[in-house]
């Protein structure tokens, strides 16, 4: 453990990858966003509005 800690301390600090870069390099996170956003804003919201239309009596 001590040796490992020493090794980590001696290594150069890794360059922090910006958030946008990490987002753009993650295809499955993009896939999640690309499916969830239109599903919520377009389909679910729209279906909720249609469901609230009163039925003809």
């Amino acid at each position: 453990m001590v040796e490992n800690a020493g090794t980590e301390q001696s290594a150069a600090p890794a360059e922090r990858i910006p958030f946008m870069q990490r987002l753009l390099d993650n295809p499955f996170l993009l896939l999640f966003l690309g499916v969830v956003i239109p599903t919520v804003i377009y389909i679910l919201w729209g279906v909720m509005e249609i469901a609230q239309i009163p039925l003809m009596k």
Partner: protein
Amino acid sequence: MANTAVGTGVIGTLATKFRTCPATGLQVDLAAQRLIKANAVAAVVFLAIGGLFGLMVALTRWPAVHLLSSDMFYLVLTAHGLDVLLLWIIFFEMAVLYFASAVILSSRIAAPRWGWVAFALMVVGGVMTNVAVLQGDSSVMFTSYPPLQAQPHFYLGLILFAVGALIGCFIFLGTLVIAKEEKTYEGSIPLVTFGALTACIIAVFTIASGAIILIPTFLWSVGYISNIDTLTYKLVWWAMGHSSQQINVSAHVAIWYLIAAVTVGAKPLSEKVSRTAFLMYILFLQLASAHHLLVEPGLSSEWKIVNTSYMMYLAVMGSMIHGMTVPGSIEAAQRKNGFTRGVFEWLRKAPWSNPAFSGMFLSLVMFGFLGGISGVVLGTEQLNIMMHNTLYVPGHFHGTVVAGTTLAFMAVTYLVVPLIFQREIIWPKLAKWQPYLFGLGVAGISLFMMGAGTLGVSRRHWDNAFTDALLPYNYPDVASLMMGLNGLSAIMAATGGALYVVIVVGSILFGKKVDATNAVSALGPMPKKVVQEAVSKYGSAGTWHLPGTYVLVAIFFGSFVLYYFVNWKYLSELWPMQ
């Protein structure tokens, strides 16, 4: 021939049969190559069939010709929409996905056998739906709104086709994972592959939406479900129907970058900016589906405006970014190639005789000016009321899907044939003119349909004269002129389309084999290293000295603003304020 020889080598960690492309130096997995060929051929077959149907539609709507009977008109119009809007486009997009992953990343393709399963499902589904339409009992239009009901195999064919396409999307994603694991590229994926990823993500949403609505509709057609709510159907169907066209936008923008890279060695002006523009597509482009529902009384203005205005404008901004960065990257590359005189030498001396370049540039210009501007107008709730369900709508989407996507796909075919089929293009002089012929024809179709739509001519209507109507109505005479010009434009576009099919099929069958000795004549003069760097490596052009592009962008913005406000002027005349 030495460097085109096929060998069993190692890409990553697994033994794979591959060849080295003489023009780009990329490693091409032969399993991916076969899948690309199969999907591209199927695409061209359905383009030929669907294009012929399109010509028949235009000749019927031309009052002086009025080619088809009413029954045949609606049958042919249904088949036209299916064959060109879904089958041609999505088969070609499967080829693009496999190319942008396996070939550009020099990776082995994931699960090639599943690729053949996907292909078989798509072919069976496509043929089944066509058969259903041609049998005559499924003339329900591309949209197939209930209570119109088609034969069960119409819906089943669409479902099989969608499942096949979904498998293709996951093969693309799997190939990205393999390429990363096996370190066939360093850092981020290239921009062209990122554009294809955007198309893939939108495709997954599109196909899932299609499944959600088409499976119950299929069950309704066989009698297991008693009723399909029309408005819910419209809402969910358009998440497929319009989003499928957003797959096209992402794919053809990726193709613009690809063609610019191969033909003039263009690198993106800024990788970050172009990727952010694609991110805008991923997050917001599908929401534009709502513009088909802008006159539905059951949906609130909040839902309509959030989806079409607030969110759609973010996606439009993405398109406008690409509209600047693609010509900008070409200008940057051309200036680097030595064309530095004046504002436009880079454009004048661009390779206009290369059909890949000319097709790409025409696609770029027409997508922006015809399809893009009209799309924003149609997506504005207040303005939409003037054009809703008129011929303006097909005028708009012929500007996006045909002038934009189809022309871009045609253009890239002139690279795919030598790169993947390894054949030279036959009849290069005819090929040089093909994009202009098709492009001008389609521009005419788009403009004249939009013109007729502005005069109130309805879409999807067999008889412009309303001869059977109880209440007589006549469109203005100039509407007939517009429909005649639309018919002439359709003949020109069909001629260009037929030329494309003949040249491509002829090249595949009879073209001279491409190897290291004739790669330059087949693809263009750009050095292999430049092309490889531009296509398959992350990196920006590193300059913003683009005076010509700034002038072009200013012209576009001027036209956009002018046209947008002219339509508000029309609206004020429609409902004058007292």
